[in-house]
């Protein structure tokens, strides 16, 4: 009997996930405010149902009362976050909140399935980080000082990375985390944020070659320290974020080309210099090359994905614990195994929606600094998703990076929540700008009516203005269309 419920629930979970993803897409494309609200209500419904089905089946499979407790706390967390945003940030992007809650829910479910004790730890960290990050949006919105602190950002970032390099314990071939009072911190995650703030504050105004040069030097130092700590995945993410931000800020193709070519040169150098990079590439080409040692992880991950097939084995019906590091780097394989490849595709779509949402803010917001922050953070997010998912499925060599919000890892999840909070702040700023503009527009029309006799030059100017605005709108529309395909 349990078997049949498990079998049905497997499909139910998949359909709920598909509906949720669909609603997110509809919500993104919806202009009408009421329709949007309707969408979000449905999203919330699917999210809660999804959690209910998942914990119900996990309870049936394990007969462990802890499952019910965890269910209650997760639902409480989700509802609380919603309530808080409703109360304090009414204008925040609830689609983003819903996506975040969904990703966190999926993360909890797979963590609980793999190991209950670490899942509880993760939950506490998430709850703490969420409470703490609640002040971030208002901070971003109100404190204008953050724009000009490039010294602070660079020094803080470099200091943290150096600390890790000097004092971290060697763990799995790389120096990644530092132990403070029993909790290990992976500073490279935090520095991801300061790094973006640093570049944005440097390049927000008129850009001279000197500024780009200094940005390059400081960014280079970041990456060199990371490379020396053998945290190559993080170094790669920093590198890509740096290239994108410089390209976007300068609008010069030459920087993009230079960046891309330097990425290929450095990867060739890294391949020559580091034995572990070479071995990663070798097992990428053939996972069974060194099955007993280096190839074991990826081979197990691929076996897991294969045994899951389209619909997955169902929760507690597969054996994702056979995959080494299933909680951290290979969570995606564990999800594929128990929830299926179709579910995993929906998950990728959700990550894509997140990216689209952030980029949309980057395009619409006026101030250059915030534009750069948004594009930088979105790049880091998207590229991190690409590195983990590509790595676990053997599309690219494995880099040992966690899947944001889903994998186990306190620092990672904490930083991603902070990142999402910053994005919410930017979204609020954008909303304010929109309202200001609307007001201005109204004023303009009234003034127009008053001053009916305009001279030609003024009209010409207006025409130009309109043209510019039209162009902007066209671009926005096109991107939106493409996002809503």
């Amino acid at each position: 009997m349990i078997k049949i419920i498990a079998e049905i629930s497997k499909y139910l979970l998949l359909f709920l996930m598909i509906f949720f993803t669909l609603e997110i897409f509809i919500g993104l494309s919806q202009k009408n405010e009421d329709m949007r609200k309707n969408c979000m209500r449905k999203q919330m419904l699917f999210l809660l149902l999804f959690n209910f089905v998942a914990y119900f089946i996990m309870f049936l499979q394990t007969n462990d009362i802890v499952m019910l407790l965890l269910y209650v706390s997760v639902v409480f967390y989700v509802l609380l976050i919603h309530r808080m945003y409703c109360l304090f940030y009414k204008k925040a992007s609830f689609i983003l909140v819903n996506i975040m809650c969904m990703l966190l829910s999926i993360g909890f479910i797979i963590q609980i399935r793999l190991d209950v004790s670490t899942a509880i730890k993760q939950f506490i960290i998430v709850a703490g980080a969420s409470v703490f990050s609640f002040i971030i949006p208002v901070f971003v919105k109100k404190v204008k000082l953050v724009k000009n602190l490039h010294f602070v950002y660079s020094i803080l970032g470099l200091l943290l990375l150096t600390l890790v390099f000097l004092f971290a314990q060697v763990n799995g071939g790389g120096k990644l985390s530092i132990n403070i009072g029993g909790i290990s911190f992976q500073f490279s995650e935090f520095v991801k944020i300061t790094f973006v703030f640093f570049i944005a504050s440097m390049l927000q105004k008129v850009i001279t070659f000197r500024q780009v040069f200094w940005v390059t030097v400081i960014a280079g130092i970041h990456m060199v320290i990371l490379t020396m700590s053998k945290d190559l995945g993080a170094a790669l993410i920093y590198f890509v974020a740096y290239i994108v931000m410089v390209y976007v800020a300068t609008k010069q193709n030459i920087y993009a080309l230079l960046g891309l070519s330097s990425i290929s040169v450095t990867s060739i150098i890294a391949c020559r210099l580091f034995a572990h990079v070479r071995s990663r590439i070798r097992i990428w080409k053939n996972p069974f090359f060194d099955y007993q040692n280096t190839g074991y992880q990826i081979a197990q991950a691929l076996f897991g994905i294969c045994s899951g097939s389209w619909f997955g084995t169902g929760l507690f019906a597969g054996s994702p614990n056979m995959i080494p590091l299933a909680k951290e780097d290979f969570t995606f394989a564990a999800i594929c195994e128990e929830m299926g490849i179709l579910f995993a595709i929906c998950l990728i779509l959700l990550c894509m929606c997140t990216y689209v949402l952030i980029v949309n803010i980057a395009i619409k917001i006026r101030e250059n600094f915030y534009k750069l922050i948004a594009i930088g953070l979105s790049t880091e997010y998207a590229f991190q998703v690409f590195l983990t998912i590509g790595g676990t499925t053997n599309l690219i060599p494995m880099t040992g990076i966690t899947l944001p919000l889903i994998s186990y890892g306190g620092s990672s999840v904490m930083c991603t929540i902070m990142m999402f909070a910053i994005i919410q702040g930017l979204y609020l700023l954008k909303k304010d700008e929109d309202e200001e503009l609307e007001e201005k527009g109204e004023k303009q029309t009234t003034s127009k009516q008053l001053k009916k006799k305009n001279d030609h030059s003024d009209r010409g100017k207006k025409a130009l203005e309109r043209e510019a605005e039209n162009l902007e709108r066209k671009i926005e529309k096109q991107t939106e269309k493409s996002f809503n395909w």
Partner: protein
Amino acid sequence: MKEKSKNKRRKALIGKPYIIVSYLFFGMFLGMIGYMIYFKVCKSDTFANNLYNKRQNKYEKNIVRGSILASNGTVLARTDSDKEGKEFRVYPYNNLFAQVVGYCDHGSSGLEASENYTLRSSHVDILEKLQNNFWDKKNKGDNLVTSLDIRLQQAASNAIGYNRGAVIVMNTKTGKVLADVSKPDFNPNTIARNWELLNKEESGSPFLNRALQGQYPPGSTFKIVTSLAYLRKYGTFDNFFFNCSGKYTQGGYTIHCNENIAHRKENFADAFANSCNCAFSNIATQLLDKNSLESTANALHFNESFPIGLLSVKSFFALENSTADGLTMQTSIGQGNTLISPVHMAMIVGAVANGGRMMEPSFVKQVEVYNGTIVKQIAPKSLGQVMTPEEAYQLTELMKGVVQRGTATDDLSSFPYDIAGKTGTAEYGSKEKGTAHSWFVGFSNTGNSDIVVAVIVENGGDKSHPATLVARSIFETYFS
């Protein structure tokens, strides 16, 4: 004024790099999704069937392992359960399919190992699955329908008798394997009881599938390859004449014809039919350069592993410009360092029979649900055109000569069907008596559902006679 308007324009274009970047990353996400689908559709089977994949054992809990069937549907391996519900595997034909079907107790081998995933997956329809789940019954795993033919397998096994050796029989057009016999064999039903005995050295490695994993010197059967190299260089066999005196000396090394018979004046077809070592030594040292022999061998997939589903070994061939005449002569007649498996020999001869197209040997015809619904059919796969149809035709003519007026005449010429073949005696170790394997490779040439046969009888003696007799009984069974 102008500057202001310029500023506005610039502002309007601010989005352009943003849009390029976002499209790039957007494409990256779509690429990931595309790759996931590609991975599932194209690559997941190879990983699921991988021998390292221990997850397969987990499915046993919910699925009754499927049966392995012969091409006519007769059961070769099935799972039964006793009164207490404990499952065990039954092999109704005992020793007959020992290596090819294999076993799944004490590890696994043969098709039981390579098709483990197939046998442990179930494609029963969803209603039945739900019903089974409801009553806590196991689902029935899929059945594997092989291309094996019980009559031929039995005939081949009987013909080899108590000798050690191997037989492989394939359909010429499709490459489907009809018989795969390896002796000595074992009884998979009693493998647990006899495990230690079977692993003793005296038992002659019964677990080895000699047809696929045996590495033998090809002996005179290699003359097919040497002939092809000659044909590729000169375009025709017509201009070759040789006067055989029973021995041939070159570079201080002497080669003898079998039993020192002097074949006298002969053309190429005669030399091939008589399996004249002297003529071929002459060809290899005087008329061919070493590269051409090597490139011909490599074109026939020597030194390459082929993905035939079951464990097989690479065949070995090496000839360099520095190779001494003695070794070159030996190589040209299939001695020297060359090693080949019977299945590879059958593939080469199959290519000759099939107008130059080499087929990949395959053991599985289709996968079925227990009630007969077909899950998937395995289509014949070609390894490519390894020789031109004209070359294949010329070689067929040579091989017909062997049966009509050559070394296989005594055993096969009375046969009412058109047969082409080549015999071989492969010496190994020291040159004492009784240390030569007996080879026969050949095919029926009726133009309608023909078969390729490769036979090796270990220590068959100085003559190819024993292997040819095995082939004869296979042809007789097939055409009766």
